[in-house]
């Protein structure tokens, strides 16, 4: 039953104030992500009960407590897989995954790669700070960004770029944002949710406590909007853009790639209520065994 925008906003406002004391460090980039998500769901006029927020484990994962809406919090690295199942089972839910770079690219890389392939209609906000914040600042797989002198070894390998991995593995929407510009991030999230497929939004969200390299200032000096001339529907153009920015030592912000894929598969909530299930008759299954 669709609600009016007004009711929506009323419900949202009513519940949006965090009941939970925020325990991010002052200045943490995650505050901006929180604001961006709030702005996005408000402008999408989504009620808390239509939402399923799936969070990773990390400082980033705390975001689930600061947002109203159904949420699921499972194991470190698992968020995308829970989200996949939830969306497959109930396509009517808006499923938003919010997880850190450690969660998504280290322990959860398997789910990331396969989610890109499967292309479920969910939106991932990758809260990328280059460290494992919650466990006190160890290197994450994106550590090394902005450190050209990084001397790689088996113990300290070079970083991976989620944008490139997503492009390679088949994600159909890839955007990049920065906590210094939460309005833009909010727009990206809106676009990501509207996109019918897997939307990866890599959001640089500085860890002010443990990442002394990728600071707000560093990002401000390195981000650069995707040029208006860019055609995000072309994969070749997306690769071109990524390579061009990389060569220039810059980080594109905006929509890098967007090309919905035509997919099979059900679009309806799976049967679960007694009246929906009652119809089941297994007799044909038994007869086949004769």
């Amino acid at each position, binding site marked *: 039953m669709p609600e009016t925008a007004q009711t929506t906003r009323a419900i949202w406002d009513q519940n949006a104030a965090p009941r939970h004391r925020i325990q991010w460090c002052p200045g943490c980039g995650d505050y901006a992500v929180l604001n961006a998500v709030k702005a996005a769901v408000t402008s999408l006029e989504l009620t808390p009960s239509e939402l399923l927020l799936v969070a990773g484990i990390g400082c980033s994962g705390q975001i689930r407590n600061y947002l109203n809406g159904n*949420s699921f*919090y499972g*194991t470190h690295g698992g968020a995308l897989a829970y989200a*996949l*199942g939830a969306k497959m089972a109930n396509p009517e839910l808006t499923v938003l995954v919010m997880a850190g770079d450690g969660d998504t690219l280290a322990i959860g890389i398997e789910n990331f790669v396969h989610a890109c392939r499967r292309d479920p209609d969910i939106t991932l906000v990758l809260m990328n700070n280059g460290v494992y914040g919650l466990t006190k600042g160890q290197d994450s797989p994106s550590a090394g960004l902005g450190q050209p002198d990084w001397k790689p070894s088996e113990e300290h390998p070079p970083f991976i770029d989620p944008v490139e991995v997503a492009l390679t593995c088949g994600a159909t929407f890839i955007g990049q944002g920065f906590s210094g510009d939460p309005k833009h991030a909010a727009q990206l999230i809106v676009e990501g949710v509207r996109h019918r497929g897997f939307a990866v939004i890599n959001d640089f969200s500085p860890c002010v406590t443990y990442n002394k390299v990728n600071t707000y200032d560093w990002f401000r000096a390195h981000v650069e909007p995707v040029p208006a001339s860019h055609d995000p529907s072309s994969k070749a153009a997306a690769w071109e853009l990524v390579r061009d920015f990389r060569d220039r030592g810059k980080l594109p912000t905006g929509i890098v790639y967007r090309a919905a894929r035509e997919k099979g598969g059900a679009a309806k909530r799976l049967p679960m209520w007694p009246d929906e299930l009652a119809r089941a008759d297994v007799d044909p299954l*038994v007869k086949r065994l004769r």
Partner: protein
Amino acid sequence: MTVNQMKLLIGGVQLRDGVSTVADLVGRILTRAGLHVLSVERSFASTIYGAHQFDPLVVSAAPLLSWGDRAVDVLVGLEYDSNPDAPQQPNRDTIRQHGGDLVEGGVLLYDSSGGPVNTEALQARGGQVFAIPARDIALRELKKEVVKNLIMTGALFRLLEFDQDERWLRQLLEERFGRKGAAIVDLNLEAARRGRTLVERILEDRRRPSVGYRIEAVRSASPAVYVSGNEALSIGAVEAGVRFYAGYPITPASGILEYMERHLPGYGGRVLQGANERESIRAALGASVTGVLSMVGTSGPGLSLKVEEIGVSGTTETPLVIVDAMRAGPSTGMPTKTEQGDLTLVTGGGHGEIPRIVLAPSTIDECYTLMRDAVRLSDKYQCPVFFLTDLNLSEGRMTVAESVFRSGGASIARHVATEEDVRGARYLRYRLTDSGISPRLIPGQRGGVSKISSTEHDEFGFVTTDPAMRVAQMDKRMRKLHTYLREDAKAPQVYGHLGRGPTLVGWGGTKLALLDARERLRREGTEAAVVHFTHLWPFPTHLAKPLLDTGRPVVVCEHNYSGQFADLVQAHCLVPTRRVLKYNGRTLYPSEVVRAVQEVTHNGAVAVRLGGKDPVMVEVSIDA
């Protein structure tokens, strides 16, 4: 003349010779003919091609009590050439490995295309040998190698004096190949006829009209099907209401995935072949969060990888049915051999303490009937429910009356709250209740949001480390198990009179062997009782202890090394146990149980280990 009571064994080279094809064809046709067939000792290799594979089928006119012992009445060797491991010897694995098990007067039928086999020893023991060049005929005369199996089938049926009018075979072939045209049906029937003729001729030569074994069709009250445990439990799940299934291929659980992929979408469900074990169970949890009844299936190695998610299911209180089709571990172990080695893992695996329920069907029909309970309990108690089968049960096949499948009825009653249910009181996902069960709205419903959390949480679902709330939530979750013990735990099945002799204790797939052993012991003058468990965890102490604490020896029989269930019995009932343990990958035989019980009762053994180099190893003290 032995009529309608025998054990056939069909062997051959895996993949190449079509052992399962022939065995399933025979099992199906005999089932249609009103007989009962049981095939749970199926043996195949964990390589695709080239190893020896065999499939023993027990046939009976009455519902089957047991798979019996190793002894075989009729041996069918489908392989036609020599064993690459022993090329100098032109005999074959079926004969080499199982010839010794042939009973006096038993029958050997084999494909002699590669040359005859020296079966003198076998014949000396009274074996009747029928060598027919099936593959040669198929290739040369019928120009199609695969029909060699129909030649062998026809020959077998003639030996058993069965289906001489081709009625059963023709019907099945028409159903199976009808769409491909009559020619192919005819070719197959022609092949069967050749086999029949060949046997006919040999019998005539020997002037023996019969080999002494006969199958006669029986008029049966209700139609029956020939079904595997994996199929039976899948049907049970579909019927109970499962609409999301996820798995990652693994023996012996792959069959569930394949069955569900084929059939669940027809019921509006979806099936995910995960990219790995974790994606599977996590997706199933995600689906369950949305209210859909969800299930995963796997075997030991996969279950070990899913362990962290057991805790997620338990703590977030997200229902999930987890089928563990056990195979021989540890680690990669023996992927195509049976075992009951995962009990400790399913009752205790996972860090911290997780509310969970463990059920284990003991027969293939129970794979169907008990599954409904598993689904219902997962929904009612919002926790993981394990459904423990083993390779024998999962891949094995049995004749089951169709009426069994009509016993279930409609899907289970759901335990999901509606907006109305939660109106009034503020909706709290983890409300502290007396039963331990909290009301559960699902995302998408109005009436409140659910903060579903694997961290310790308050009633709303927000993270907390408040000591008192922690204890309250922990107690609430575990209280569900007490509610379960009161309302849903089932007592073990008891056969015979307790207290007159030793008590044989079992769980899961060993039941038929224990019942058979009990009969044999009785015939030998020992009054044993059998206490067989299907509801394993939480351990039903209040139901079990009175049965086991009789002062008589408690002999726990299991397919594992240490006696995992015996440990549970001791921990919870404080009753000393004796153990009969078999972990060589093969099925427990009634004769072994009988012998072990004698060791226990007469020689004071505390543990009897079966199936090693010496068939029985006896331990008289448990201390090292």
